């Protein structure tokens, strides 16, 4: 066993209200710069929808992630030869229009307009060329199903549904959507790292955060096509690629990442997971439908004495082990089994897990409060949002995987209604728990973690022990003077 620690996260989608506070917190902190205007390290998408950049999930177009070729795992964009062949003309990159041309408005024309009879206007200007422009797209152009005939209708997941399911999805008064906040998944088998010809992207040994070395990056942009989630961005001003850094400078100071800290819906959970790095390849080779389960399998139990011994042997500190035991992510993913990875079939083994949304799923009839236990399965089959669609998002098409999660979420719902509202019988709640395979205590724990926790319980940052990592090879005083965030020299082009 080769045990490593990984900072992993869970987003509870039922709680996301789509306010975009997280995106703005991140933008103000990291990407509010020239050349980085269009980068949304954190963005919130509406599903069904095409997301950002447009149809990023369509790997026939963008060729991100991995595929199985015989008994081997290969980048979908091609091997080394393919990368070299495409180094000057990579046809799988998103265009500026697929992101959007960043814009601002000539506010001066508004505030300094001379008194007159006409209403002054502020014309939109491009933040790239500085010229007046027509705004045709934005990072949330399809927010809350706006333009759904173009965007929601062309969601790669929706396109795969049957004609009937699609009609059902867009029937007036039954229309349904949910929000999907996305950041870099800090994958175990990261496509961006494998694609970089300069070796500039690396995964930090002690916590698994994936970073781009700004001194080594040569701007080839192979990470942009290699990442199936389109979460690395090319900075047109510096000529370097940049991506979510999981706010590691904040975490090193014990603070939650900015998007986690500011999340209004408190949907975000963070904690450390232990996994066996020797199993990465075998796990990523599984069938599409098995991937979510295989990924769960790879995560090790921090309470198991054998795992603890091995972890100590692999250099995992006591404090990190303790953090792994308190990790809410471990509970969601492994103990309760209610969080799934996004598009595991891209085979990068993403370390951001989602609790799929229950509310848009519950059947419309009697507002989802009908006696559920008796016809548990038919309820799921009559769901407003087809289970097949959700399985395509979170389980590589394996509907059973998603249904298992929903059975547990419904059990929590029924038990809480029984206790809080009193419109469900105890027998009903017991039957729901039995179908879900949860104990009453577990249901209570899920409810508390979902609804009542403080930030300290939701976000358990392990001590990053940078001092220890550094002291092993360097004089700390000298290191302190050299350290800091960012590049040591200005890039050749410009900031």
């Amino acid at each position, binding site marked *: 066993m080769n045990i490593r620690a990984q900072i992993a996260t869970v987003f509870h989608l039922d709680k996301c209200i789509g306010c975009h506070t997280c995106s703005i917190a991140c933008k103000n902190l990291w990407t509010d710069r020239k050349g980085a205007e269009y980068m949304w390290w954190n963005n919130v998408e509406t599903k069904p929808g*095409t997301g950002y*950049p*447009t*149809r990023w999930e*369509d790997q026939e*177009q963008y060729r991100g992630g991995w595929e199985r070729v015989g008994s081997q795992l290969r980048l979908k964009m091609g091997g080394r030869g393919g990368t070299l062949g495409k180094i000057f*003309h990579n*046809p799988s*990159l*998103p*265009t500026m*229009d*697929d992101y959007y041309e960043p814009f601002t408005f000539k506010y001066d024309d508004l505030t300094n307009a001379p008194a007159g009879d006409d209403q002054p206007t502020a014309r939109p200007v491009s933040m790239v060329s500085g010229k007046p422009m027509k705004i*045709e*797209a934005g990072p949330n152009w399809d927010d809350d199903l706006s333009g759904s*005939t*173009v*965007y929601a*209708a*062309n969601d790669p997941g929706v396109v795969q549904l049957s*004609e009937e399911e*699609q009609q059902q999805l867009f029937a007036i008064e039954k229309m349904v959507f949910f929000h999907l906040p996305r950041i870099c998944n800090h994958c175990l088998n990261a496509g961006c790292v494998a694609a970089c010809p300069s070796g500039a992207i690396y995964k930090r040994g002690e916590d698994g955060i994936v970073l781009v070395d700004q001194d080594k990056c040569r701007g080839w942009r192979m990470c942009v096509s290699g990442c199936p989630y389109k979460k690395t961005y090319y900075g047109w001003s510096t000529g370097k690629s940049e991506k979510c850094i999981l706010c590691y400078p904040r975490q090193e100071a014990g603070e939650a990442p900015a998007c986690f800290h500011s999340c209004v819906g408190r949907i975000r959970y963070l904690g450390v997971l232990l996994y066996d790095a020797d199993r990465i390849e075998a796990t990523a080779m599984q069938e599409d439908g098995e991937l979510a389960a295989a990924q769960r399998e790879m995560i090790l139990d921090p309470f198991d004495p054998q795992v603890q011994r091995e972890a100590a042997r692999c250099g995992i500190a006591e404090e990190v082990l303790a953090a792994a035991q308190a990790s809410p992510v471990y509970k969601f993913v492994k103990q309760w089994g209610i969080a799934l990875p996004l598009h595991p079939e891209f085979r990068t083994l993403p370390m951001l897990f989602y609790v799929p949304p229950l509310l848009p799923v519950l059947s419309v009839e009697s507002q989802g409060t009908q006696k559920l236990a008796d016809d548990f399965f038919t309820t799921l089959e009559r769901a407003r949002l087809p289970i097949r669609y959700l399985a395509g998002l979170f389980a590589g098409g394996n509907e059973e995987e998603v249904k298992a999660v929903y059975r547990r979420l419904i059990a929590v719902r029924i038990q809480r209604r029984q206790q809080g509202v009193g419109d469900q019988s105890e027998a009903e709640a017991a039957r729901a728990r039995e179908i879900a395979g949860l104990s009453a205590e577990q249901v209570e724990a899920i409810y508390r973690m979902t609804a009542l926790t403080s930030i300290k319980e939701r976000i358990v940052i392990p001590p990053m022990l940078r001092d220890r990592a550094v002291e092993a090879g360097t004089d700390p005083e000298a290191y302190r003077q050299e350290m800091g965030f960012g590049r040591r020299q200005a890039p050749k082009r410009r900031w």
Partner: protein
Amino acid sequence: MLAMVFWVSAGASVGAADALRGEALFVGTASFANGGAPCLGCHGIAGAGLGKAAGANYGPDLTALFEDFGEEGVMAVLEDLSFPSMEAIYAARPLTEQERDDLSAFFAEVSGQQAAGIGGRLTLDVAIASLAFFALVAMLGWRRLKGVRQPLVERTRKGKVK
């Protein structure tokens, strides 16, 4: 191989001026006794079909040399090296008398011949080559950065979406 043939045939007739040997010296298949560079390094002779020889454009074309200077003139140029750029090359590696005779005979033979119309063919060749090059570049970049969003919007506007 060709050089061998020339060399043998030249050896057989030492003394008499030999245009064939002169041509061999001119194009470099036979080398000058003192190691001078072959004339073709700088001069072309369009009349002998050597006008398009690549790079042979440092000095003037020599088709009409014999006509313009006559035998005496040619011999004088080759011996006295009256042009500075030639002097730099041949002063230390002078041509032998036999070599001068052979070259002169060769010049006499080609003098008055029509320069083959190579200009047009060259243009055609260049045009074909550049077309091929552009076609290759176009082929390589055929799918380059075809947008995703814009075509979606256009398709919907045209009502082609199911």
